[in-house]
């Protein structure tokens, strides 16, 4: 009962905030809506007994990634409303395509829902999905993957610095070149 209550609260928040991400004309509102989506997904992770992932999602995504995006929005002064000047054909085409994808996904999932019912939820120990269970996996079986992820992050940091760096004074580029 309590679980169902929380599921519906988080699910509705996630859905409406998701609509907000796509439909807000102001990028800042999109970003804040995405933060709400992420917090709701973290809540759903908690309902799925994935405590570690839930808080990592909050720390990494809302605490770092989204702050960075929000930062760039206000730094570049992009918080202007985006004009709506799509042709009707284009807008309806996109809506139809998305509806198709959504219907397809819901069909894929809902087909067994009507047929067989939900798979069972096995009982788990209290600390399942907490830091230790994930960490043991990460630092034994997937050690190399973790190392590679570290290399990837380092490469991304260096890449970001190189790409975003201001061009040097003596090699000034033409705008649009």
């Amino acid at each position, binding site marked *: 009962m309590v679980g169902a209550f929380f599921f519906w609260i988080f699910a509705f928040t996630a859905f409406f905030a998701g609509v907000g991400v796509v439909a807000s004309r*102001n990028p*800042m*509102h999109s970003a*804040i809506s995405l*933060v709400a989506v992420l*917090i709701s997904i*973290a809540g759903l992770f908690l309902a799925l007994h994935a*405590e*570690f992932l839930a*808080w*990592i999602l*909050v*720390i990494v995504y*809302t*605490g*770092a990634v989204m*702050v*960075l995006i*929000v*930062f760039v929005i*206000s*730094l570049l002064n992009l*918080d202007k409303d985006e004009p709506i000047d799509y042709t009707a054909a284009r807008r309806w085409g996109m809506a139809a395509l998305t509806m198709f994808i959504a219907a397809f996904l819901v069909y894929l999932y809902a087909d067994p829902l009507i047929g067989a019912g939900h798979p069972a939820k096995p009982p788990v120990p*209290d*600390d399942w999905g*907490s*830091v230790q269970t994930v960490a043991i996996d990460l630092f034994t079986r997937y050690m190399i993957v973790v190392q590679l992820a570290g290399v990837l992050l380092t490469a991304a940091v260096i890449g970001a610095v190189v790409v975003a760096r201001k061009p040097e004074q003596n090699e000034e580029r033409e705008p649009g070149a």
Partner: protein
Amino acid sequence: MTDSHLFNVLVPSLLKMVVIFHVLLGVVAYLVLVERKLLGRFQQRVGPTRVGPWGLLQPIADGLKLFLKEDIIPTKADRVLFIAAPLISMITALLAMAVIPFGPRFELFGIDFGYLQIADVNVGLLYIFGITSLGVYGIFLAGWSSGNKYSLIGGLRSSAQMISYELTLGLSVIVILMACGSLRMSQIAESQGDGFWNWWIFSTQWYFIPGLIGFFLYLISAFAETNRLPFDLPEAETELVSGYNTEYSSMKFAMFFMAEYVNIITVCSIATTLFLGAWHSPLPFAPFTSVPGVIWFLAKVFSLVFVFIWIRATLPRFRYDQLMHFGWKVLLPLALVNILLAAAGLIAAGSF
């Protein structure tokens, strides 16, 4: 879940929640007075004395004044976010208190209350970092939604500063996790009993150096996280006309003000729990151990709060590039080296 079980879980939690919440807000109100009094002393003044004996009714007068002021929303402001920002600040500040263990296990009227802690979650420390990382949004959105360039600069500064120092904050605490092996706040607190030499700041288990460095790294980044001097650039009065909260008035301003002080108490409580032995007495024999754990906890927290106020009265503000330089090129490498030191210490002590 049976009725009696529900009762035994729900009633203690609710009681603890109510008590901690009210005590916290009362403490916050008087913390403002304490800060003004102490600042007065530091500057050869006496501080507020007019309202009540020794100015003791000053917080009530301040609160009344803020309540009765006109609530202004600027025309250029983004209404929804402008109203949401102080709420986010206040809620995240209060939520972080939920996992702090103020005292040991106790029983009342035959009901086991557990630790004096609202929620003893398995990933307590991650929870705290998650919630405090949301606190950035309160300040940033306040700055952005005000439609004022000073506020915007304050908001930008605060988000950059808080992301930068959050790294050091997290890394400085990792040494405790390595030594203690748990993220549960109550368990970290329990692991430091029997005398101050077992507190993680001095612990001989790893030859005390990592604990000491970790504590000071934590304290410095905590100053930055709470936007206190010497890192109060987001609200620097003299250059930004108090930054992100320039456009706020009445209760919304009061919420930012309270959130700031709640945050100070939170970071001090976390430091106490992680480094200073939580509710354990410094010496493990009679006159010290007979004092209740909560008193020890509060004594440690208020000593740290005193340090916060002391630093405010002592140090000038950093320049912005100095702040960034200090965070990324001094504190962060130091925190990383400290983790290596802690690992080496733990291996040498044979606790790995």
